[in-house]
């Protein structure tokens, strides 16, 4: 089995550093998307034909065997595509950046204030959870990918729009076959094409970006933090591409939720924005690693969480590659009140 066929079969090493593997990653992503969309179109067409059988088109043309084969092929195409996509996403979510073996005793660190069983010494300040032991620094922060929700949303929008376009095309074809043209349906189908193209493009782009950038690892010398404290940070960004710009920003946000009529709205405002690190032109030859300082402003507000009002601190790692959308990962941190 040669490299390409093995690669396509196993879906491994997507977006590796070698040029051919990087392009192969894009090819696999494209094939996965085409497979899912193709299977979805086949499924919709088959179901549309089956439901139309009772009225206009005779199902006698399709035997039960043929109907079953079509459904199986559609399910298989969707399954293979989803398997490839899910495999890539899962690898990114679970991969350790430096391919370094993790120590056997890695576990959740029980922080001092979590030992207090009854009440927190810092009311309204969220507990500093989600921190594990680091390799370079004592603590590793757990990141969140704000693009994941957008990617899932774009995927659902793609499927819905493709399904709608397929049904419209099917309807137009049926009327054309009967000797007339339903211009309204044809017009609607033509109008749908840009929507479908845009939603599929957006989803594909989000998916590729999600897979290509790899996991960011951010480690910190002390945690939780307090106003006036200066700590060391270590960033390790494996990536599979040459980064045009890598930037790390400390952010403090006010987040408020309010009722407006029957709607509930949320508004966010950045109140502290401090650039911690910035570098242009990072090659993809080796995992990028750097260390820098972070100082929490002396008179800054601590983290605060209530039902409708929050003050949240986070470290944003963002990167951009020419021709690709900007990629961002957020690392929430807890800033406690200063020691008494």
């Amino acid at each position, binding site marked *: 089995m040669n490299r390409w066929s093995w690669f396509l079969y196993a879906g491994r090493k997507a977006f590796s550093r070698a040029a051919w593997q990087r392009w192969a990653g894009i090819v696999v992503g494209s094939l996965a998307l085409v497979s899912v969309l193709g299977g979805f179109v086949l499924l919709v067409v088959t179901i549309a034909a089956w439901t139309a059988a009772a009225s206009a088109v005779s199902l006698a043309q399709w035997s039960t065997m043929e109907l079953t084969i079509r459904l199986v092929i559609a399910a298989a195409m969707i399954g293979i595509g989803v398997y490839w996509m899910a495999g890539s996403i899962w690898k990114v979510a679970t991969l350790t950046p430096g391919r370094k073996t993790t120590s056997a005793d890695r576990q959740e660190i029980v922080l001092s204030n979590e030992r207090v069983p009854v009440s927190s*010494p*810092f*009311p*309204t*300040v969220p507990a500093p959870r989600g921190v594990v032991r680091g390799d370079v620094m004592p603590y590793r922060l757990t990141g969140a990918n704000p693009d994941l929700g957008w990617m899932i949303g774009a995927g659902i929008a793609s499927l819905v729009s493709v399904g709608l376009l397929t049904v419209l095309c099917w309807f137009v074809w049926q009327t054309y076959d009967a000797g007339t043209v339903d211009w309204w349906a044809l017009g609607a189908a033509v109008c749908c094409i840009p929507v479908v193209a845009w939603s599929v493009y957006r989803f594909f782009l989000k998916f590729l970006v999600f897979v290509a950038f790899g996991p960011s690892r951010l480690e910190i010398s002390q945690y939780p933090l307090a*106003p006036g404290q200066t700590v060391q940070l270590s960033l390790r960004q494996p990536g599979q591409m040459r980064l045009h710009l890598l930037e790390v920003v400390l952010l*403090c946000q*006010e987040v*408020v*939720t*309010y*009722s407006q009529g029957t709607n509930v709205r949320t*508004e966010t*405002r950045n*109140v*502290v924005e401090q650039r911690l690190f910035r570098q242009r032109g990072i090659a993809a030859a080796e995992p990028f690693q750097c260390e820098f300082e972070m100082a929490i*402003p*002396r*008179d*800054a*507000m*601590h983290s*605060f969480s*209530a*039902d*409708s*009002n929050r*003050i949240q601190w986070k470290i944003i790692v963002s990167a951009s590659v020419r021709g690709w959308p900007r990629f961002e990962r957020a690392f929430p941190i807890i800033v*406690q*009140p*200063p020691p*008494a």
Partner: protein
Amino acid sequence: MSGVVTKRATARIVVSDVAPSYIPGSDLDCVIRVEPSPGAAVKQIDARVQWSTCGKGNRDCGSIFQDRIELAPSDQSLVKTLRLTTVMPRSPVSYRGFLLQIRWAIVVRVTMVDGTEVVEEYPFALTARGDSPNSPTGA
């Protein structure tokens, strides 16, 4: 010093010995004096030390001290003096932001026998160093 929400002024509330600001862990020690108007009778007195948010978002609040005193019929027309003592917590500290503010206050609610209520708030600040409340920029 005080914001008053009164349905009908049937009692006078005076809170004394309240400092303008406290630091976390310090003692808040004040005296509450409730003086019913002539002919009026006080049924119960609620006192609480609470923080609350104000600004664009829905209001959140929480209290660190809460006490309620039901007065005996023989005491309902007399001047009542209470002492409130509590230790200030470490958070949340007072804050003046763009979208939200966090304020601390002593809230005294007096319920009269006829059902009317007199409420007074005595605001103060809880700050890390006993100075002005935190601002977003840390200035």
